[in-house]
């Protein structure tokens, strides 16, 4: 009986580890091929598209890639400006709104929270026509503010911050600050925000990544090539000018993926924890 159980456990482990390793390969392989092919010449790729060993054509691929419309540096700068500003707006104002919901007893508090819950799932797509026309009318197409300002109202982030605040913000601390004569806004900035750091860090990572990856609204609003973000830049690689430049296409893809790769492997622990908290849906 005992022996049977032991062999069962061995079998379980063999199966489980095999499947997990297979999935690891499945997760890594496409990116591995991408990075390797980014260093191979178009001729090499045409001979055999599948190779696991990097070659030495990285420089020539860079020259081909940059010789055309693809401008990764511009995309990087634009995406960084938009994502960093959006992230700051999201975390600061979400914390502020959550604080209003947690710390004060006002008449419309629970209807307001219900409302935030209700609109949490509305995606940008359904209002995109009105949004575009509105931005067009006030001359804000090709203006990064049209993508940054709306993030001041991010319902999902408010929800996340509120949950965190309910669990870990001692309201006695706020009371104490009041007795010391601190103003409400000062208390929020100097006392509440530092306590919120873990939640803000989690939310910052996800806001940044989702803003960085977003395609739909930037594609509609940003029509001038000098305003292109990384994901719009990527779409150029699908165009005719790069049709036969296989190596350069892989390199372009690798360049767009690399920043996120670095962020992910530096912060993976916090990211996986953040996902487990259920505060985000990409």
């Amino acid at each position, binding site marked *: 009986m005992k022996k049977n159980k032991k062999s069962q456990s061995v079998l379980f482990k063999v199966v489980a580890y095999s499947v997990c390793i297979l999935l690891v390969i499945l997760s890594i392989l496409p990116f591995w091929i991408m990075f390797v092919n980014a260093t191979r010449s178009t001729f090499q790729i045409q001979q055999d598209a599948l190779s696991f060993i990097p070659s030495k054509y990285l420089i020539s691929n860079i020259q081909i890639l940059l010789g055309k419309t693809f401008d990764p540096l511009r995309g990087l700068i634009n995406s960084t400006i938009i994502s960093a500003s959006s992230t700051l707006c999201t975390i600061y104002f979400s914390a502020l709104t959550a604080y209003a919901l947690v710390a004060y007893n006002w008449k419309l508090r629970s209807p307001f929270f219900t409302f935030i819950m209700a609109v949490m799932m509305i995606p940008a797509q359904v209002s995109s026509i009105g949004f575009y026309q509105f931005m067009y009318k006030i001359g804000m197409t090709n203006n990064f503010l049209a993508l940054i300002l709306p993030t001041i109202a991010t319902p999902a982030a408010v929800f996340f911050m509120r949950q965190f605040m309910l669990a870990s913000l001692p309201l006695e601390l706020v009371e104490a600050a009041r007795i010391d004569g601190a103003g409400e806004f000062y208390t929020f900035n100097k006392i509440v925000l530092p306590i919120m750091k873990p939640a803000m860090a989690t939310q910052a990572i996800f806001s940044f990544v989702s803003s960085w990856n977003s395609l739909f609204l930037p594609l509609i609003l940003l029509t001038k090539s000098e305003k292109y973000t990384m994901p719009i830049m990527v779409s150029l690689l699908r165009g005719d000018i790069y049709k036969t430049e296989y190596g350069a296409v892989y390199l372009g893809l690798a360049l767009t993926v690399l920043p996120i790769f670095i962020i992910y492997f530096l912060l993976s622990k916090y990211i996986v924890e953040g996902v*487990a908290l259920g505060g985000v849906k990409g």
Partner: protein
Amino acid sequence: MKRKKGVSYAKYGYIFSIPFAVIFLIFSLYPILYTALLGFTDFKGLGTKSWHFLDNPFQNFILILNNDSFRQSLSNTFIIWTANFIPQILLALVLTAWFTSRRNKLKGKGLFKVIFYLPNIITAASIAILFYSLFGYPVGPVNSLLIKLGLIDTPVYFLINKATARGIVAFIQFWMWYGYTMIILVSGVLGISPDIYEAAEIDGTTGLQAFWYITLPNLKTILLYVLITSMIGGLNMYDIPKMFMQGGPDNATLTTSVFIYNQAFSGSYLYNRAAAASMIMFLIIAFFSAILFYLLRDKDAIERRKENKRMRKAYKERQEAEKL
């Protein structure tokens, strides 16, 4: 003093909510209402300034609902979503069972989670074009791999075939999201009281039985959450089908979001039709959100009920009477 406290601080609740409320009104609510309004007009064409309400206000909606491409996009969305979600949830459940197994502790769970989640965080637009390149014809890594493994003799043109193109989009979605789903489910299982499992172990329950009779029922709410958010996400599916094959071949991967984009921002710039289609999508999403909203609300209510139980016995009895 007390009265002053109650009155004077409440106003800060309003003040601190102003930025959110103002921005929401301007950038979310107004565009939604404006989109809804445009759905009833003849507004189309690039640079058009004026528009009029249609004689038959529902004309755009009728046209859209009878539009073959729109119907096709709805059915595509449904097919692709189903083909991605069923394997995704099954794999996530199996992995969850393994990763939370009390008898057989696996090593390296943290690393596995990190790697399984990786595709989810990478720019979807890049992933779509990467897969387009991977499935290239006549030369592409996937064709090379299949030939090397001896599974096929000549390269296959995956991208031109409707079924394989859809299959690849569904696979990308599956590949991007199973890790996310698994992490959510594992954290759900960790939230279940270990006492229940211990009691079951004393009774001689096997691991499989424990999973079936304890884990699954306790995960019900989380499973529904995953199902509904995934459905809504599926309806919004844009980046992958747009970048992968522009909705093609022959509209096989045209999703509702890609349809709306194409109506409004290419060709004849049919903003009115796109607005009508957006509103139809909005209604579908609102319906699913309402279900989700109800579920999450219910959970809070149950928690509140538990608190009340502890505090007031009489209240508890009334509650139970209500439940019956």
